[in-house]
C-alpha cells in the first residue's frame, strides 16, 4: 500500500480553476502535497495558490507554456510516492474523478493510470502519429491517447523517464513505462455531464510528437541518422499537406 500523493497542477491562465482544484484536493486525505506549476507569468496564480497553501513554481522555460518542462519541474519539486498530474483547465474535476485516477495505484491494481475522454482525440494524431509510434514501439499500440489532462503514476515511472520538454513528454513516459513492464490503464472518464476542454493541438505539436518518436528510435538504435532525417522530412511534408 503506497501513501503520500503529490498532486501537480499544470496551470495556464485560469486562476479560478486552480483555486477550485486546490480546495478539492485539500479535502482528500491521500493527497499530502499540492504543487502548482504556473506555465505563464501571471502573478495571480502564484498568489492565489500560495494563499491556499500550495507550493508554487513558474515553469523554468520563460516564454510560452511547454508541457514537458512543466511536468518535469513539478516532478522535481514533489516528494510523493504517487505523482498525479491535473491540467487546471480540465474543467470537470471533483473528488470522485481524482479518486478514479489514483485509487487503482493505491490499491496496487495499476502503476500508471491515464484519464481519457474518447471522442476528443485528434484525428490527425491517430492518422499520423499513432502509426509511427506503433511501428517503433508496438507495445504502446493499445494506448488510445497520447495526451491526458489527468493522470497518476508511481514515482519510479517519472524518476526513470527521459524528459521531453514539449508535447512529446507523455509519449516518452509511456514508452518508458512499458519498457519496465509496468501496468498502464486508460480510464474512460467520458460520462454524461462531464464536458472537457480539448487540447488545442496544432501542426507544431504534431510535428513535436513525430520528432520525439524518431529521436527516441534513433537513441534506441532502431534507425540510423539518415533514416531519421528522411522520416522527419517526410512527416513534415505530410503534416503540411494534411493541415492545408
Amino acid at each position: 500500500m503506497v501513501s503520500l500523493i503529490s498532486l501537480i497542477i499544470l496551470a495556464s491562465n485560469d486562476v479560478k480553476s486552480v483555486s477550485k482544484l486546490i480546495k478539492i484536493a485539500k479535502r482528500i486525505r491521500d493527497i499530502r502535497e499540492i504543487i502548482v506549476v504556473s506555465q505563464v507569468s501571471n502573478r495571480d496564480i502564484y498568489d492565489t495558490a500560495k494563499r491556499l497553501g500550495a507550493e508554487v513554481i513558474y515553469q523554468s522555460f520563460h516564454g510560452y507554456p511547454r508541457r514537458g518542462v512543466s511536468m518535469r519541474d513539478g516532478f522535481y519539486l514533489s516528494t510523493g510516492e504517487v505523482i498525479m498530474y491535473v491540467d487546471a483547465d480540465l474543467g470537470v474535476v471533483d473528488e470522485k474523478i481524482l479518486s478514479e485516477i489514483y485509487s487503482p495505484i493505491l490499491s496496487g491494481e495499476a502503476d500508471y493510470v491515464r484519464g481519457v475522454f474518447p471522442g476528443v482525440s485528434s484525428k490527425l494524431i491517430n492518422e499520423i502519429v499513432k502509426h509511427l509510434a506503433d511501428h517503433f514501439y508496438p507495445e504502446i499500440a493499445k494506448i488510445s491517447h497520447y495526451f491526458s489532462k489527468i493522470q497518476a503514476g508511481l514515482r519510479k515511472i517519472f524518476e526513470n523517464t527521459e524528459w521531453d520538454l514539449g508535447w512529446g513528454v507523455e509519449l516518452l513516459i509511456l514508452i518508458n513505462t512499458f519498457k519496465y513492464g509496468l501496468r498502464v490503464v486508460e480510464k474512460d472518464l467520458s460520462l454524461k455531464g462531464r464536458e472537457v476542454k480539448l487540447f488545442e493541438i496544432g501542426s507544431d505539436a504534431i510535428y513535436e510528437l513525430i520528432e520525439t518518436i524518431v529521436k527516441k528510435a534513433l537513441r534506441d538504435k532502431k534507425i540510423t541518422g539518415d533514416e531519421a532525417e528522411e522520416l522527419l522530412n517526410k512527416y513534415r511534408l505530410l503534416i503540411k499537406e494534411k493541415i492545408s
Partner: protein
Amino acid sequence: MRYIVVGSSSYVSFVLNAIKEVDPRGVIFYIDRSQEISKMIASQFNINYAYGDLLDPSVYQRINADMADVAIAATDSDALNIRLIELFKKVFSIPRVATIINNPMNISEYLRTGVDLIINPTATIESMMKAFISSDRWIKSSTPELFGLDVYLNRFVKETALGITLSYIRDAIKDLGDVLVFVVSREGKIIRDPLYELVEGDSVVVVTPRGLGEEAIKRITRSIERLKVLRTGVDTGITRI
C-alpha cells in the same frame, strides 16, 4: 579548492571556464544525469565527472561532496536547482552554493533556500536592451550580490539641455552617505569635477552600498524633475526609473 558543478544548462561551459581561469589548480567534479553528457563535458574541460540521479545523495557521496568548497546548481530546471541547493546546504554542508536561475519569476523560491549566489542572466539582457534603445533613463546594472553594491547608469541626451552639473546630482543624495557619482564621457573619459556640466552622450554612474541604489535614483530623478520645472515651467509629472 574543490568544486561541484551540476547540470547541463547552456551556461555550464561558462561556469567551468570561469573556474578554470581563476583557479587553474582547483579540483572540479562535473555531474549530470547522463553518462554521455558528463563524459563529454569532462573531457572538454579536462575535469572529473560523475553521473546518475541528481537528487540521489549517493551520487555525491561517491565524490566526497562533503569536502567541496563550492557547489553550483546549473540545470535547466529551477525546481531541480532548488532541490540541489537544499541537498548541498543541508546534507553536505557545502560552504558556498551558487546557482543560475532559468526563469527569474522564481527568484523568491530560490531565496528561501539560503543559496549564497543567484546568477540571473536575464538581468543583463534587460539592462543591455534598455540601455541600447533608450536614453535619459536610469538602468540598474547587474552586479554579483556578494559585491554588496548597487550600480545605476544613465546616458543623458535630452536632459543635458537643463544644464545639470555633477554637483547638482551629488547634492540630491548627500544625506545618503557613501554614494559615488561620476561621469563617463562619450570618449570614455572619467570626470569627477563637481562643476562639470553634462553634455549629450555623457553617462552618469551612481554606485551605492547594496539596497540604497533605488532610493538614490529616486532622489536624483526628483531633483532633475524639479530642475525641469524651474527651467521650463512645465511639470511633466513623469518620474522615470
